[in-house]
């Protein structure tokens, strides 16, 4: 199972235009990262708040709805965030 996970991550990393991947757990700890530590920490810290806000907004408008993906496009690059599925 872990081998599959590794392979998937490698596949994404090899896609054109991908600068790096960071996997963060629910507590905000970066589990896996292909970027340097300081950038990882910065991204991890900022993304969590944004994700909460975005998810909150989607559910506020329609409680049955949920956030599936978040893209933050900026002048220089794009940050793509996939929120993990919350199991009860």
């Amino acid at each position, binding site marked *: *199972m*872990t081998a*599959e*996970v590794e392979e*998937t*991550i490698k*596949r*994404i990393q090899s*896609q*054109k*235009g*991908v600068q790096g991947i960071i*996997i963060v*757990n629910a*507590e*905000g*700890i*970066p*589990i*896996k990262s292909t970027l340097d530590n*300081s950038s990882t*920490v*910065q991204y*991890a*810290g*900022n993304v969590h708040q944004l994700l909460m806000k975005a998810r909150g907004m989607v559910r506020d408008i329609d409680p049955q709805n949920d956030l*599936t*993906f978040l*893209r933050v*496009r900026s002048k220089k690059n*794009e940050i*793509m965030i*996939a*929120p*993990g*599925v919350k*199991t009860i």
Partner: protein
Amino acid sequence: MTSLIEGIWHILFYVCMSKMEIVYVYTKKRSEFGRQCNFSDRPAELHVDILPDISLAANFTVRDPCNVTVQCAEEMSEHEVNTERFESESRGINHVEGGWPKDLNPEDMEVTIRYRKKVEKDEHYQNTIMQIAGLMEHCCKQNNATDIYQEFFEEEDDEVVEESEEQPSAKTINVFRDPNEVKRTATSLCWHPDGNHKLAVAYSSLEFQRAPNDMSFDSYIWDIENPNKPEMTLKPVSPLVCLEYNPKDSHILVGGSYNGQIAYWDTRKGSQPAEMSTIEHSHRDPVYKVIWLQSKTGTDIFSASTDGQVLWWDIRKMSEPFERLVLDPSKKGNLDNALGAVSLEFETTMPTKFMVGTEQGLVVSCNRKAKTPAEKIVCTYSGHHGPIYALQRNPFFPKNFLTVADWTARIWSEDIKESSIMWTKYHMAHLLDGCWSPVRPSVFFTVKMDGTLDVWDILFKQNDPTLSLKVCDEALCSIRVQDNGRFLGCGSQLGTTTLLEVSAGLCTLQKNEKAMVSEMFERETKREKILEARHREMRLKERSRSEQSREDEGKEADGEESTEELVARAEREFFDIMEAEKKKEWNEERQREKEKGVCEEKDFQEEHETNGVSSFTRREISL
């Protein structure tokens, strides 16, 4: 039984009466409880009748009848709310890793790695990753397939810039207020040469001897994003009247101060001036303008002041200027005759020429490379009634320049010295500063004493400004446009600098604009030339005519008389007329006396009396 109860009832009632309570008691047999109610109709019975007690009226006083208006509407009240100024500061956040369980030390590499490995083995983690990885891959591929934000009509955009439908407008972006208690005038502004993120503002009080004693001398450099606090303070010895960034080195600024000295700052070194000019060799009046020159070393400046001198300095050696020019129109270098300079103009594309705007309303054009000081002053342009506060060549057509003075702004052509080729009407308030737009040859800006900013577009309208905005209630003393033509800063008398953004139509070059403006200037120049020629002809004719007539008279009088002779002649004539009048009066008097004398001879006895009377009357007349 009932009578007893009745008796009780009466007592009860009485007791209640004294307390002003009305109670009605009724009785019912026990066996009748629970029975259904049979209602019966009967006429009204008066149970209580309380008559008014007049004695109670003594406890009250009668009020005067008053008119009370009543309206059935919600009562509203007006409230004003003014939020307190919120001072905000920008700060950065330092991120640190968090979320680690309490017993784990995040510094310890081994422990963290072990923790991470443990998480990776978790099944839930793996499932989640597989799910979202699929999603992520899909989006990555999507991105690579097409650029969803591609600009399709980019090329067409450049040609079809027809924003003529848009009304010209300008809006205030930010306002920078003088942080000191005692407000000073923002006399000069200068944009930072690279990036235009900073604005240097010089503050001083130009009112003669009216500056309060505790007025601060500081000038500030503002970051346009942060209007709450200036980015840097410059502390001169005397308040700065003008301030300029070095276009080659954006850390160096030079400022001209109120006491005539020049100082320069290096922003890397701090708030104190790096060097100041010596007082003996500086100007004797406030330095109104300082400009950087185009030189190999990039350290040359020249300054102008109302003491009549234009001085050239090298900032590395501020002990004395390396060149000096006295603005004496008679070209003799006489300081007493000199015109006070209020503005300077220098164009880097024409490094040998420069122009000076004077207090007397003349623009003096000078040549730097002249051999003798007398030849330095080439010519003068007259036409204004007051000091010329702004002088600038059109960035696209350097032969034409703009002057802002008294109540008008005028555009001149270098070739026509007698008058300007175009001018605005006379406004109600003085115009205090102005400048061309660096991107559009037909647009220029002026600011007035009543706090309005006017944007003029001479291709659109010549009689009125295209846009007139009231920026503030006090006078606007200075204006400066950024190099991109989009932002401009204007400084007011109370030290408030306002940053405005003009609409796109006013800062994008229209098609054919250059050609049309050039045509307009040429046309006006030609018109003025023709007028000048006609004036000259007329003057020649007059002169020749008056010369002829004078030749005829010249045989009697001695040709042209000087003013003194004319004055003497006028005096003589005046006294002659006076004498003639006096003689006339005296003759008339003598006539009157003669007639009286005849009457006296007839009545000799009353001679004394009549003499007395006549002498009395004579005295009256003389009085």
